[in-house]
């Protein structure tokens, strides 16, 4: 049975190219992809995750306001009873100099993995496969993220 991932660009962000490519990549990798498109609210992510019984929620953001758009996101997911793996990726801060700092910020917000905008779709797919099959140790996780 194939696994379902919900995909979207959060907030008022209208950058569509990245998620279009992710949609194709995850579909080709055998996932059922629900692509919510651009300008997706926290509630829309949560509702779609419930409706499709999603194993993973993949959030994209490219316009630099991700931190603001993701405040309380995991509370909303919890309120809807969503217990999915959550990834976020893109240009997550206006300055990209200190990505480790950005990663910490989004891990603290509740995301399981944090990717920068240079990440290949294949890396995200490999990471998700790992997360959905076996619970990786912290050290493995660190290796894949870096």
């Amino acid at each position, binding site marked *: 049975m194939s696994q379902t991932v919900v995909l979207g660009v959060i907030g008022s962000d209208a950058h569509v190219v990245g998620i279009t490519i992710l949609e*194709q990549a995850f579909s080709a990798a055998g996932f059922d992809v629900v692509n919510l498109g651009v300008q997706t609210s926290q509630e829309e992510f949560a509702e779609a995750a419930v409706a499709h019984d999603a194993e993973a929620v993949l959030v994209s953001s490219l316009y630099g306001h991700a931190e603001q758009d993701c405040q309380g996101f995991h509370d909303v997911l919890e309120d809807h009873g969503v217990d999915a793996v959550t990834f976020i990726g893109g240009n997550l801060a206006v300055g990209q100099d200190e990505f480790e700092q950005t990663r910490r910020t989004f891990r603290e917000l509740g995301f399981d993995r944090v990717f920068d905008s240079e990440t290949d779709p294949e890396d995200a797919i490999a990471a998700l496969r790992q997360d959905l099959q076996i619970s990786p140790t912290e050290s493995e996780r660190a290796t894949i993220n870096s």
Partner: protein
Amino acid sequence: MIRDERIPSDELRRIDEEIRSNWPTGADVDFEEAIEYHESLPDRKRFADVLESADKPLLQPRAGVPRLDDQIELLEYLHREGQADLLPTTIDSYTRDNEYGKAQEGLDKARETGEDTLNGFPAVNHGVDGCRELIDAIDAPIEVRHGTPDARLLAAITFAGGFQSFEGGPISYNIPYTKRHGLEETIEKWQFVDRLAGAYTERGVRINREPFGPLTGTLVPPSIAIAIMIVEGQLAATQGVRSITLGYGQVGNVVQDVAALNALQKLGDEYLPDEVVVTTVFHEWMGGFPPDEARANGVISLGGMTAAIAKPDKVITKSPQEFQGVPTKEANASGLRTTRQVIDMAIEQEIDIDGIAEEQDLIERETRCLMDTIFEHGDGDVVRGTIEAFDSGALDVPFAPSDSARGAVLPARDDDGRVRIFEWADLAMDEDIKEIHKARLSRRADTEGREQSFRMVADDVDAISDGKLIGRPQGDV
């Protein structure tokens, strides 16, 4: 249910009054007085005439800042130092969302602090008089450029304010710009904009209208862009517009770009009524730019070279600072001059490249397939046909953020760097054309020793900013 029909005069007046009541500056619009103002403008400020009578491609940058005096200074600079032939006024994002109150706050703050708190010129807030101060100050024609789904009030004020060219259209300012505006809704709103431009035209003030050709700016197959340009041209013509500039965004393959510009002019002339003067505008590369001014200048120059060969009526230039967003005025002028130098050095040369006619023929056949499906979907009505064709996926735009388009079609470059369609989804296209694309992409796959896959699409999206045209696998071939 809206159709491609001219808005009656009384309906035009009714909507005009209604939308002008949305914001206080709307009250200052007086059509008769506006006609007089336009008639008082010298020939060199008449956009349509200047564009249509030019004997070489005219150059136009993008530029907009919130305060009037700054905007005057900026345009004067680009005219003087960049030798721009035509000037723009780019509108801010709040105005694009019809949030005139927020635009006013931003403008007030800009006036107080001197900082640019808006990303463009809030023309509605500046009102008719503010616009005219700009028109009076600048010794060249100026176009309004924006990205507004509902641009009715903006049009009413800027037309009365003396602007004689207005970018956008119901598809081209919907599909790439917004998620939730329905196509029927934006078509209705733009019918008013075009009808208003038509009303000026009837009185001898030919307002130039320019559908936004690059669409999503990312590897848009030429035939899709051209079909949408023709549709928007037809809608504008129905409402009385008589000067229409169809747009096209550079894909970076010289043969395909020249062929596309040729096809755009030819099909535009063919599909639009005889009384319309059709011109073309070429946008320098609208996709991702290299994060390096030196390399960006190379991308800009390839655009200039293409323009020198295809000879469109207008070129919208990019700046070497494209990667970092809004350029300084110096960088903006620099992009203009680099483009000018390349065009002026190359345009008198006889550069006839093999294969342009064949590529143009392919683009024309594809465009006709799309126009035919629109016609069929609408039982002969282009408005209905466009809405239904987007709805069925028979018409589609790659990487479209809008819910009004499937965005299921995916492009990829072939082995020569021309943009082909890799994923057709439900796009209405003859099978033999699909076979041609498939064969071309298959040749690329052979060259690269990999399967045709979405991976090519992803690689191609990043290729130019990474310094190449085609997204070949790492390690080269």
